[in-house]
């Protein structure tokens, strides 16, 4: 990453090659369409290249940090969008899910981790899962979610917290 910050285009390319799919997948999950996902990933990676956002190891591993940059861009993009209303935020409709035919050790680890996280999410009660998805992948604020689901704001906040606590307990070492 230091090489990237010094302007090494090939180092940047290597980072894209390693993390581009995860970044695009996340952007697509949030934006819901490929064109918007491409714009989000392009903006996010260019912001990294231009050092307008800077990585430091204290912020966690590079992949997590890059994904947080993409997540922020995607949510900003959603919130700017005039069509940001009751968009469906479930994972259905993703047509081009691809399992790599041969996985490296790192990819196997990430796939296993992703499966663990998805299992933990699947175990959440539906009402808790919904508020988490609307917030984290839908970009809605707690009060928007309360309006949308026609429930008190305090209930939404409570469900968010309960869901995160359960996820943390369910994931244990996986997210330590």
């Amino acid at each position, binding site marked *: 990453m230091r090489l990237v910050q010094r*302007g090494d285009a090939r180092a940047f390319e290597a980072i894209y090659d390693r993390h581009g799919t995860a970044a695009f997948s996340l952007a*697509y999950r949030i934006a819901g369409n490929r064109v918007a996902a491409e714009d989000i990933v392009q903006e996010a990676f260019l912001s990294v290249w231009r050092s307008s956002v800077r990585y430091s190891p204290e912020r966690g591993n590079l992949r997590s940090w890059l994904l947080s940059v993409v997540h922020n861009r995607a949510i900003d993009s959603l919130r700017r969008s005039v069509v940001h209303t009751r968009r469906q935020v479930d994972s259905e409709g993703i047509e081009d899910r691809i399992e790599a035919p041969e996985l490296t050790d790192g990819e196997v680890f990430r796939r296993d981790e992703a499966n663990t996280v998805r299992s933990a999410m699947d175990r959440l009660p539906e009402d808790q899962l919904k508020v988490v998805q609307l917030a984290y992948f839908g970009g809605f604020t707690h009060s928007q979610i309360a309006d949308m689901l026609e429930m008190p704001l305090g209930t939404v906040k409570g469900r968010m917290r309960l869901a995160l606590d359960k996820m943390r307990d369910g994931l244990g070492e996986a997210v330590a």
Partner: protein
Amino acid sequence: MSVRSHEDYQENIGAFVLGALPELEAELMEKHLAGCESCRAEVDELSPVTAAMLRSVPQVEPPPSLKASLMRTVDEEAALRAGPVKAPRERRRWTWFEGWSPRLATGIAVALLALAVGIGVATDPFGGGSPSSTTITAQIDRKLMPTGTAVLQVSGRDGEIKLKNAPAPPSGRVYQLWFQHGKTIERGGTFKPKPDGSYDASVSIGSADAVMVTVENAGGAKAPTGPPVMQFTV
């Protein structure tokens, strides 16, 4: 604005970690966290959960055009940063790919490969190839594409496809690119030659073993529906 208690902030921790607080409330929370060790500890405990959620989404391959476009900008900016010593190579964006996502179609490659015949590495009849590039002449199925020539100039992981005198595809149909990686086929974009039968564009070849073109319905196909009209073996 009313004064908030510690309990008010504590109640908002879940929403804060999920990024679901309105901007002003998030700013207030951040100020509170700076001075509240217990709330900060709770946030630190829950934050890895959302980080893991980011890594858990179903994987979707980005289109090759995304990298091509990104790297074009990055290479140009890197050259500018380095000064005027090395000018970036002139490239056109391969706009055919825009809005597309690749689809790997395992097994189809075998069928398509069976249609392939000899491929030649030839001198470049189109001119303009750099000394470090290789020019590959397309093997064209003359029953499907009676006129025209095509070459692929390969330079590292990038290439430039150049068509001359290519016929327009039938009405309602387009040409579509496919990239073969071993036994899988990756979907590329669609295109139509210009009225004079020419078409030039840059493509990101990556690790593809072969690049093929088929004729598909307008809008393109997820997997090839017919034999390739032309093929380049990289």
